């Protein structure tokens, strides 16, 4: 067992030596892979942050019900009763039209304009606090309430959160496309690196086959090379993304101060970091495997 381990470790050591036989070339290869992977993973990290921001702000959704202007007091009471009986509603707040007008006067400098009006343009309104916060149930509730008698308009305050969610969905889709394209690029880079290696080590492969090397023995160092290069590229990508986010935090700090909030970008969590490394390792291995499958069988001793 220990013997097998040292054998594989020996292969890995030789693969490492070969990768950095030319230090600069090896480094740049890994950097290219790192940059390629860092693009989608950086965007992913930003999206994750935007999502947590959206969740923060859409914490307490409300539905505003505006009644029609000609609603009489007893009709208001009827609506109030219906709302109180509704199983999905936690709490209801009534804003009378006279109160609303007063508030408008206090809060804005429009009192001149308001005074000049010969009748109150504001309707009676209910502010409804639903029990559940999911977008779908909120939508259903809003539609339900809009059908009530005398309710002219029902407005869901989390509308903007919906828009943000749709935007995030769009962003995630864009990241997915970018990630697939750059994964393909990573596979291609490895494929070509390994192809060149196979060409330059043609003699060694031929001799090895002649003296009894199995195909898996010949394949192994190339696969290790691809996987190792992918892993190192993934590590490079992780550092690039982390540095990006930390750098962005400074200008973002002064920006969020202007909005009187404290918002910092979080770096990739451990789970996502591990997935990133696993995926890049796997893609490197896959590129190498494809290359080996394609080119190694062509080398048969004559």
């Amino acid at each position, binding site marked *: 067992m220990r013997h097998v381990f040292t*054998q594989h470790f020996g292969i890995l050591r030789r693969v490492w030596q070969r990768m950095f036989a030319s230090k600069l070339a090896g480094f740049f290869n890994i950097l290219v892979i790192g940059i390629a992977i860092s693009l989608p993973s950086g965007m992913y990290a930003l999206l994750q942050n935007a999502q947590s921001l959206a969740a923060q702000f859409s914490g307490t959704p409300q539905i505003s019900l505006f009644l029609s202007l000609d609603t009489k007091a007893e009709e208001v009471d009827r609506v109030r009763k219906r709302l109180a009986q509704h199983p999905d509603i936690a709490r209801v707040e009534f804003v009378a039209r006279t109160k609303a007008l007063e508030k408008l006067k206090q809060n804005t400098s429009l009192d001149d304009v308001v005074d000049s009006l010969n009748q109150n343009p504001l309707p009676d309104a209910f502010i409804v606090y639903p029990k559940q916060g999911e977008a779908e149930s909120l939508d259903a509730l809003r539609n339900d309430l809009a059908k009530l008698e005398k309710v002219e308009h029902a407005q869901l305050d989390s509308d903007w959160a919906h828009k943000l969610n749709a935007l995030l969905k769009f962003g995630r889709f864009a990241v997915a496309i970018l990630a697939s394209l750059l994964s393909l690029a990573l596979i291609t880079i490895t494929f070509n690196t390994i192809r060149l290696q196979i060409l330059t080590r043609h003699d060694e492969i031929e*001799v*090895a086959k*002649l*003296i*009894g*090397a199995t*195909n898996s023995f010949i394949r192994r160092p190339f696969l290790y090379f691809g996987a190792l290069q992918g892993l190192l590229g993934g590590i490079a990508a992780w550092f690039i993304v982390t540095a990006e986010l930390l750098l962005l935090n400074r200008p973002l700090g002064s920006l969020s101060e202007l909005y009187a909030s404290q918002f910092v970008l979080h770096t990739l969590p451990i789970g996502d970091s591990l997935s990133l490394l696993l995926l890049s390792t796997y893609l490197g291995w896959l590129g190498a495997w494809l290359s080996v499958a394609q080119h190694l069988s062509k080398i048969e001793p004559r």
Partner: protein
Amino acid sequence: MKNHLHIDEAQHGYGVTRKMISFNQVHKRYPSGYEALKNVSFDIAEGEMVFLTGHSGAGKSTLLKLIAAIERPNSGSVLVNNQNVGALKSGALPYLRRNLGIVFQDHKLLFDRNVFDNVLLPLQICGFDHRESSKRVRAALDKVNLLKREKANPIALSGGEQQRLCIARAIVNRPSILLADEPTGNLDAEYAQEIMAIFKSFHQVGVTLLISTHDESILQDSGVRILTLRHGELQHNPSSNTSASSGQQA
């Protein structure tokens, strides 16, 4: 002649001699239409040493390639150690070849590593551990008198040294059969004798040897059985001195 007595005794000691290599009506035609071997049949017994000779293009290299399954026969059978080599699946080839030591005409040495690592390669392939393989590599290099050059790059070696290095690599995992294709090809007589002496020492320890050569001085030198190919056909060779005639062709 003392060697021969020794081997004869050894063979009789085992009772029935085992066939190590056996060709039975073997035809080999290349895709170009060139007929390299025609109806070739012969046996080589375990522990026997045989020379293979003939003009260039007579089919010597093809014959050796058939034994190592580098080429496959169009018809007839090639048995090595009772295995039908021509019918082996490609997955089984590595294990056949591990039992063969091959000394290539063009050496096929690797110039990206030193002498030691060239000899190490077969042991790495077979998965020997580090300490055991170092021991074996040094023993093999010692046998061909190259121990002092273990750190050198093979490109710095003379022709004779390269040939000896190739032999060391062929015998390092102690194969039971050694095939050599023109091992003394470009060497002067002194080096050639040296290499033949190495081969004879393997013969003494029971290795089966098939050596292709057209070096007259070597062919005359010993009483070893000679297989002669002419235009792909095996000649009945009355001059072959065969003390070990038990494995002679049918």
